[in-house]
């Protein structure tokens, strides 16, 4: 390569047009709802607050460290979409999930910033990982002791009037523990930690989250070692556990039965999935329109089934586009993982990517009746503080790795430039 062709890896300048379009979209969407029927101050507040938060997260924060612009924009768009859809279902319902979600969103941005800084500046992970691992092990078991049962799973705790879902927070710990031990070729620490988490999740009957933990660990194991035989054993073991679970637990059988034919069990267990299908079908290609339709007849429309609400209001085409956004998110995540110089960073970035991808598949596949529906959240979009904050924190981990990558590349450039200046090599001699 010619020295003159060695350009500084440009700090990705914020794609102003993309972010402006996003801000305009949310501004007009919230305004539309705010002006519908009667004037709603909440709508006006959100019409200002959401674009502002998007601006802060995608344009202002990247001034202080290099960032992957596209990744940030998509994650923030999905967060904004969650606030928008939740606010539209609040109308005349007496709930204020939209406003709450906006607050969670701002907390999420703070969590993202925290994680970026952590990845950038923490140099000694050894002790930190141990503390995180032990803390997470205690946290995830808390619902068994003081938890409350919600929708058939005991995975919530109440702290100071706020509900918290420990399994969402522990996801971050899982990613850190997995990538740290795997990058140091330690086998037992992560296996014990993952096995422990899976066991606790099984006890809490939180099968969807257990599936996500399990798939993430298995995929990261494959990525780190490339050991196909052991990955196959793990896959078979998972399948065996699924068969065993199907035969042992009656509620798993019910889930599978309603997946095969929800209409047959419409009055009871099949009600939710039947309502989801009717909502998606009612939306058609282009949807019934923002704030219209009857999303609230779907049980837990605000968390597990929010994808059905999106499909009803914006149409199946928009639903597919949302899937495409997750796809781009995954591609960016993989690209960050591949650019990483350190094994820990590479595995961490890949882990985040895989976990977000698997979770998206589990919930959207469930809503579209491709697989049995399990109660997990749709990343960034579903209502819930813990889920949103942990997803933004994962984006923070990714961004942290991305910023370190950028720094490394700039460092390389500085070295090569100073080399070429010192030796004044003839350009023809370079290959």
């Amino acid at each position, binding site marked *: 390569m010619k020295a003159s062709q060695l350009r500084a890896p440009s700090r990705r300048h914020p794609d102003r047009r993309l972010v402006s379009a996003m801000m305009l979209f949310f501004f007009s969407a919230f305004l539309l709802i705010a002006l519908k029927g009667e004037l709603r101050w909440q709508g006006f507040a959100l019409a200002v607050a959401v674009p502002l938060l998007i601006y802060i997260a995608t344009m202002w924060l990247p001034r202080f460290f290099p960032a992957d612009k596209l990744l940030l924009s998509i994650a923030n768009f999905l967060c904004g979409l969650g606030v928008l859809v939740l606010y539209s279902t609040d109308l005349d319902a007496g709930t204020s999930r939209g406003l709450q979600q906006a607050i969670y969103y701002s907390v999420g941005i703070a969590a993202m910033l925290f994680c970026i800084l952590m990845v950038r500046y923490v140099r000694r992970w050894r002790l930190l990982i141990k503390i995180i691992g032990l803390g997470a092990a205690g946290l995830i078991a808390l619902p068994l002791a003081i938890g409350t049962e919600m929708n058939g799973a005991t995975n919530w705790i109440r702290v100071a009037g706020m509900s918290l879902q420990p399994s969402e927070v522990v996801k971050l710990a899982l990613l850190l523990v997995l990538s740290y031990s795997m990058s140091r070729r330690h086998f037992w620490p992560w296996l014990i930690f993952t096995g422990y988490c899976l066991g606790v999740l099984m006890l809490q009957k939180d099968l969807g989250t257990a599936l996500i933990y399990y798939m993430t660990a298995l995929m990261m194991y494959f990525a780190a070692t490339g050991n196909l035989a052991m990955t196959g054993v793990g896959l078979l073991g998972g399948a065996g556990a699924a068969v065993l679970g199907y035969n042992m637990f009656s509620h798993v059988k019910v889930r599978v039965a309603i997946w095969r034919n929800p209409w047959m069990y419409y009055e009871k267990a099949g009600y939710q999935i039947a309502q989801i299908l009717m909502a998606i079908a009612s939306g058609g290609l282009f949807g*019934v329109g923002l704030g219209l339709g009857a999303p609230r007849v779907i049980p837990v429309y605000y968390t597990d089934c929010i994808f059905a609400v999106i499909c009803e209001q914006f149409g199946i085409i928009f639903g*597919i586009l949302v899937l495409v956004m997750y*796809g781009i998110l*995954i*591609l960016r995540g993989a690209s960050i993982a591949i650019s990483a110089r350190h*094994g820990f960073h590479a595995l961490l970035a890949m882990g985040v*990517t895989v976990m977000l*991808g698997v979770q*998206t598949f589990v919930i*959207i596949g469930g809503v579209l009746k491709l697989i049995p529906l399990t109660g997990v959240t749709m990343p960034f979009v579903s209502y819930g503080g813990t889920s949103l904050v942990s997803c933004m924190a994962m984006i923070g981990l990714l961004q942290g790795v991305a910023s370190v990558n950028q720094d490394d590349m700039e460092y390389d450039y500085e070295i090569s430039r100073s080399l070429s200046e010192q030796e004044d090599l003839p350009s023809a001699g370079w290959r």
Partner: protein
Amino acid sequence: MKQLHTRFRVLTLIVLGLLLVAGLYGVYSVNLYGRRWFSNSKNTRYQAAKNNVIAGDIIDRNGVVLATTNADGDRVYQNNLKARRAVVHLLGDRDGNVANGVDSFQANYLLGFETSLAERITSLFSNQTRRGDNVTLTVDSVLCTRIVNAFENGSGTKGKSGAAVVMNYKTGAVIALVSLPVFDPQDISESVKTDARHPFWNRALQSTLAPGSTFKIITTASALENLSGITDYTFNCTGATKVLDQYIHDYNMAQHGKISLERAFTVSCNNAFAQCALMLGDSALRKTAEDFGFNANFLFRDIVVENSVYPTTNRNLVEVAWSGAGQSQIAATPLHMCMVAAAVANDGVMMEPRLLLQVKSPAGVTRLRFSSKEYRRVVTEDIAKTLQSYMLNVVASGTGTAARVSGLTIAGKTGSAEASENGVNTTNAWFVGYIDDDSLPYACCILVEDGGGGGSVAAPIASMIFQYIKDNFATK
């Protein structure tokens, strides 16, 4: 590091592949089943839309308005009690007691869900309540009324449950579809709701029953296809054929002696067809039945119909032998058996049943025009022609003589299917048949539950239908 990156790429492709599968599956299933999900009577959305949109009219092929919306926004039907009762299952009722009537299954048209964005914006400014599209059916409502009259006044059918379907075998257009007993959609009394015969049930589309001897059309088709020389074979009917430890017997314990396939079809000999089914074997017979649409997932555009069943489990020789005569656990709807007869009449091509003649917006934009669609070829033309000649014999000199109409050539097959309801053995009367005339290409299926012999109870109603078609559909 390079291998690590390869594995990263593999994982990325796997995860992207999962999302792609989810997206494709979503598009596929919404495309295939979306209409059925949407028009489900449990969907509160289109019920809510009734408050904002004036539902369009439903009109029959001759321009008779079957259902319209009055000034108060209520659905009103024809003034004549007999006329509105006859099409009640076809249209559905206000409260959604009848499943998948035109009023609910075509709600996307009737309630204007198919209007374009431009039309919606125009209506927003016109300050008028939006009107749904008007739906014109292929159905002749007068014929429906006649059929109900024939059922309610016939000596063998009075008070019985049943169904009748009439369709054009060349285009698939359904011109009559009734289910008995009928009820008045404008005044649903308590006695209707508690009637043990379940008047809300649309028997033409929702009742899957043993088709009995009408299934011999399919057994014969299978024999012609798989057993060479079967037309020259002689069966021996002693009145009872022993299979394992049971006896196959004939309706009214008839004995036919030495008998050919053609003759056995004409007189509907169970013994010969039981032997025939045993010669064919279960898999060959099932294959032909599945060609004719048994075990298929019927997803027709205009009509929601139960799937027909040819059983795949618990098949011992007794079951197989009875299958030759359409018993065992074989089950089909009257609409499907009508399609079977229609396919034979149409030289082996089964048409998809269609109900919509056209859909027009209030502004006169045609949203949908009648189009016929081939469902599938069920048998070769040669076999269809042979079946046609057998079915002509049935009406000319066999069990179906009561279906005759002077001046028309009628072909058909009778059935007297044994059923057991609440431990009481009953005999359901079936008749499927068609007019052998290219200018009047109509087929019908009649079912009279607990009616007795198909030839004596069901065939006369078919005769009345064919007479009506001759009088009203012939091009002058």
